[in-house]
């Protein structure tokens, strides 16, 4: 036995119980950083015995962009575009979560209509996020068709974003205090048609995978985690619920009037890839339920809160009204008067509890802004989840965990 091999065996001994070695040699494989199966820039240095993973070591930070440092230099309204680039599969949730954090600090009273509009947008974003994640699990198990189907539906969601804010991926949606405009007539038409056609298209796609023998054989028991370990590793979101813990920020600390809606928090049993997939699929159905309720009961009222210090006035007012002109100038120059304080606010993001820890010293920019990036925290569990599994299992475990490189590396 060579020295190198001996070293590996010793460090991996507690994980690696199998006595037989497949080809008698331990190889080191670089899985990533630019590997077609990682769907993002992740590096995993795997020690493998044949096909079986003995240990793995992660490297993160390939696309680190110093968001927390940048945020210390930017006025509050200019931080929204930074949040876009965290979990870019569901940017609207990040944007609106940030707006709600600032609103909590300035203690703005938000009209019910804004809450409901936000709920609709956030649930659309959740659907888009889960569609990507689940279709990628399909791809990694070899079902390429199931990747293309949901993209048609995601496209419709992106068109809805476009109607609201003009952007598709990095949305910068809404404003501190509400939205820049009400839902447009085209949005109403498109949302109605989406609500009508999506459930059917979704079940059709779902039926390709959910009870598919090959898919089930491939994903069940793959990359499992127990509820205790999931808790210890700070899991949140669908990954935690797949392990059987029913923690959801929308229910435990309702924000944006989530307490008004009737929906179910699906939980899994085994915490494996199949359960993570199924939890997300069910969450998509529940999101549709929430959107239907919110849209059906959309209250009358204003689409913005009455916070002129923070909300950019209408252009017509800026030209005709001195006060509006002053506010416009102050907001654009980042001279808003923000109270001192410390806030932690979190929302249920696409892949877990997305939190914002904000310290304001009353200046034009945050003194400190820390993002709780869910996948940065739960991705730590990955080596433990794939030890003893095969390389192809590691691929689908990674994709089913919904680790988004932008959020991981901030």
């Amino acid at each position, binding site marked *: 036995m060579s020295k190198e091999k001996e070293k590996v065996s010793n460090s991996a001994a507690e994980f690696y119980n199998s006595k037989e070695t497949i080809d008698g040699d331990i190889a080191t494989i670089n899985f990533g950083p630019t590997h077609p199966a990682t769907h993002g820039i992740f590096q995993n240095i795997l020690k493998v015995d044949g096909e079986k993973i003995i240990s793995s070591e992660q490297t*993160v*930070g390939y696309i*680190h962009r*110093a968001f*927390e*440092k*940048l945020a*210390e*230099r930017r006025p509050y309204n200019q931080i929204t575009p930074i949040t876009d680039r965290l979990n870019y599969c569901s940017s609207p949730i990040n944007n609106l979560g940030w707006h709600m954090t600032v609103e*909590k*600090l300035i203690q703005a009273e938000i009209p019910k209509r804004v809450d409901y509009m936000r709920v609709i947008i956030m649930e659309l974003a959740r659907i888009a996020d889960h569609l990507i994640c689940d279709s990628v699990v399909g791809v990694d198990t070899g079902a390429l068709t199931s990747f293309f189907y949901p993209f048609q539906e995601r496209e419709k969601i992106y068109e809805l974003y476009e109607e609201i804010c003009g952007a598709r991926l990095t949305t910068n949606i809404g404003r501190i205090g509400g939205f820049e405009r009400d839902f447009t007539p085209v949005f109403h038409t498109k949302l109605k048609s989406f609500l009508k056609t999506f459930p059917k298209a979704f079940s059709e796609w779902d039926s390709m995978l959910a009870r598919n023998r090959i898919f089930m054989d491939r994903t069940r028991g793959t990359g499992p985690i127990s509820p205790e370990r999931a*808790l*210890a*590793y*700070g899991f949140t979101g669908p990954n935690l619920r797949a392990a059987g813990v029913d*923690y959801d920020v929308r229910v*435990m*600390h309702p924000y944006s009037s989530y307490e008004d809606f009737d929906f179910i928090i699906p939980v899994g049993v085994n915490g494996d890839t199949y359960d993570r997939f199924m939890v997300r699929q069910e969450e998509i159905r529940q999101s549709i339920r929430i959107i239907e309720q919110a849209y059906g009961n959309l209250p009358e009222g204003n689409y913005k809160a009455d916070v002129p210090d923070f909300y950019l006035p209408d252009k017509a007012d800026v030209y005709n009204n001195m006060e509006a002109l002053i506010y416009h100038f102050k907001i654009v120059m980042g001279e808003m008067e923000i109270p001192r*304080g*410390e*806030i*932690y606010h*979190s929302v249920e993001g696409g892949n877990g*509890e997305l*939190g914002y*820890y904000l*310290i304001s010293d009353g200046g034009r920019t945050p*003194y*400190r802004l*820390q993002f*709780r990036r869910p996948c*940065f*925290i*739960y991705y*730590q569990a990955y080596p433990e989840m794939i030890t003893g599994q095969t390389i192809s299992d590691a691929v689908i475990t990674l994709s089913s965990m919904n680790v988004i490189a932008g959020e991981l*590396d*901030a």
Partner: protein
Amino acid sequence: MLSNEDLQSQVEALFGADILHSEINFDILSIEVAADKIHSIIAQLQNDEMLRFEFLTLLGGVHYPEQVDREFAVVYHLHSWKHKIRVRLKAFLPLSNPSIDSITDLYPCANWMERETYDFYGITFANHPDLRRILNEDSMDYFPLRKEYALEDATREDKDDRFFGRF
């Protein structure tokens, strides 16, 4: 459900003089404790049958260059799902020796968050299993989130436009 006031009185009864300061800041109870007590206090909060702060939400650093001998703060957010309540713990550290006990043995998920705090602030965590930089490259020789490394001032006027392709 436990209110912040109840939590405040319970925590004060539990730890007494170990709590240097506590206040309710918006919707969260914020407690300041001495840095050398942090491990035992968090362990007690985690294992207390009644309180059960079993989930570590967030761990991070803050730099206050003006506060002498209290330049760094390590901020912990714990969450009790039983009571649906969060608590914030703070420990201040001096610039001369920014070191605090690691809580990776209590919460494994603290591992990377402590590495991140080390990476950006240079705060070291005693008994951490693998304290290395995580997001920045290993050869970096400074701690970028410290306040002395200011980003460029957006309002400065002394920029030479020639260097930016604007004549």
